[in-house]
């Protein structure tokens, strides 16, 4: 009993130190153009701030840069998306012809190729959504509130590759606690400069203002 009461006290003390968890960064709400045409909901939105100055300079590297934009439409009363659409854009600088080649892959297998003279134009092609189709209107219920959730990734990394890198970084002992004193849960501490290697080089998460779907 003595042990249990001390254990409980410790647990409560620990819970107190945890306090209110630092919340995940809330996505910014951004003004979004919504239109309806040919039975589809279309979205217009600028995501150019996905690129910062060094990223724009890196477009000159000669290697392909990728931008993946995903737009999900959510009912306000549900956590799961009603539908999602996405677009991947590849940008590469032709070192010898000194121009940017841009290729956009959209849902349904549509591919669009463009060439631009400047990085700014290439970035705009990759990050501006102009009447981008998200969902067929017959999947939306009139009178129900919806909002868009948008995520843009610059040079996304596959989960598999990410796990490989993290594994190499942490480089844990192959033996467990029962073998050598390491621990799954216990006094596990490792102090080092631990740079974040993320799912992509930069990520932008946004939501649109909510709207009520009008009757048709």
């Amino acid at each position, binding site marked *: 009993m003595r042990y249990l009461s001390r*254990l409980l006290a410790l*647990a409560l003390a*620990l819970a107190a*130190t*945890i306090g209110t*968890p*630092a919340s*995940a960064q809330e996505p910014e709400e951004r003004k979004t153009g919504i239109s309806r045409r040919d039975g589809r909901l279309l979205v217009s939105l600028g995501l150019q701030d996905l690129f910062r100055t060094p990223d724009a300079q890196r477009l000159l*590297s*000669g290697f*392909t840069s*990728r931008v993946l934009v*995903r737009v*999900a439409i959510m009912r306000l009363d549900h956590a799961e*998306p009603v*539908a999602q*659409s*996405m677009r991947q854009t*590849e940008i590469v600088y032709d*070192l*010898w012809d000194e121009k940017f*080649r841009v*290729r956009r*892959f*959209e*849902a*349904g*297998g549509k*591919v669009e*190729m463009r060439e631009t003279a400047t990085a700014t134009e290439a970035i705009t092609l990759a990050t501006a959504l102009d009447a981008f189709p998200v969902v067929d209107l017959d*999947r939306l219920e009139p009178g129900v509130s919806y909002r868009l959730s948008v995520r843009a990734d610059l040079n*996304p990394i*596959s*989960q*598999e590759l990410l*796990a*490989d*890198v*993290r*594994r*190499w970084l*942490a480089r844990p002992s*192959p*033996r*467990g606690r*029962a*073998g050598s004193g390491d*621990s*799954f849960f216990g*006094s*596990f*501490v*490792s*102090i*080092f*400069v*631990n*740079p*974040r*290697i993320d799912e992509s080089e930069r990520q932008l998460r946004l939501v649109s203002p909510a709207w009520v779907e009008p009757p048709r």
Partner: protein
Amino acid sequence: MRFTPLAALLIFLPSLAQAQVPAAPSESTAELSSGFGLQYTIERIEVRGNRKTRTALILREVALSPGDTVTADDARVERARLRLLALGYFLDARLSMIKGERRGGVVLVIDVEERGTIVVGAIPLGTSDATTLWGGMDVSERNFLGRGLSLSAGFVSSTRPKVDGAEPALGLSLRMAGPPRVHGLSLSGNALFSRGSEFFRARGPSDDPNPAEFVAVNVRRAGGVLGVGAVLSRTTYVLAEARFEAVRAALPSLRDRTSGQGAAQPIAFLVREGSSRLGSLALTLVLDSRTDPVLPRAGQHLVVSLEAATPACASQYTYLKATAQGSLYFPLSVGHVLGVHGLLGGVLGDAPYFDRFFVGDLNLLLPPRAFGINFSTQPSRDFLGTAVADHRYDKLAGRLLLEYAVPLWQRHRFFYRGDVFAAFGIFAVTNPDDLRRGGASLGQRLPADLTADLGLRLDTYIGIFTLSVANALGRLPL
């Protein structure tokens, strides 16, 4: 991996059950996905920003040479960048090309930003009924002399334990390992010296941690391990080790345990008196498909090891030790993670106590050993009313733990990720003789106990930490 649009869809879409999944790219899309047809020949390679790390080491990781042809979306380039980052020597690594001397020729430029590579790997620190204070540190330089060698040194020291005849503990460890290689072999060497006492009960009830009820065996160990490891695949690693130790044990004059009825039984000290030698060969197989080694969300981690000590290895102890540890992680629909951790181990033969399964290594609520030295006389709590309090070093062990983890945050500035977790499990330890003992209850033949933990795991800019109830209990005499 080639990052085609189809791959992107496969990676990012699986959780969206109701999502409108775009059709797979057409044949024409696949044909187009080949770096826009841009192909270059590398004329030379320039490495910039490496003040400490050898250029040859960087080039080896990049695995591209002058004369090689690269495309604009060459998968080797992204993999090379991540492999450089994974070395842990750089804050950033970038590959780019500039025009070469001939049309179609390029200079491959590798820009790296070096970082500090000294890592504090462990801080053993605590106090117990038997030992007023022990403390130490394990520090590694992961890029020794800029050659990618990992050099680790650690120590632990304690005050003189309150057990009669015990001596203050000192443990020293020195380890060197070759640079990590995805292909080929990696060599490692480890030297260990330890001086300390192990405690054996001489009188009193099994659940009494009073140090006055124990006698001390003073043991010195000096030796080392040579290992050779090989990465067999992305998730599979195998390690072969040869170990040799010189052991010197001074047994106490009191060698019998007095029971409550006054009867005396010889104490099994589980180590040869005077000088002895231990030599063994071990093979360890690691399968690791976890999404993250610190805060996994899915995947599995399996470690199977077999160690054989025989006279052929100049050993005076003859035994075979097998251990299998596995962890499975299941992502739940609400973003939480269920972890199942299992351990099974057995020793056949005459293993010294320090190579048997120690209850403090199995029970999260007890102090674990540091550098193979135990500092506590605390028995297991015996929540199940078995004979577990009487067991410290055993030949057979098993443990099953369930862990429930709730991600608290992600992508915060200093704290990258944090999980609060609760773990609950059961373990059992015994010896073959106890198992076979006729007329004994199940609790005496197979002593078991409950174990648990509750805490917070943090992945931060300055490292990885666990703050938990068990962690505190392992360091304080509660």
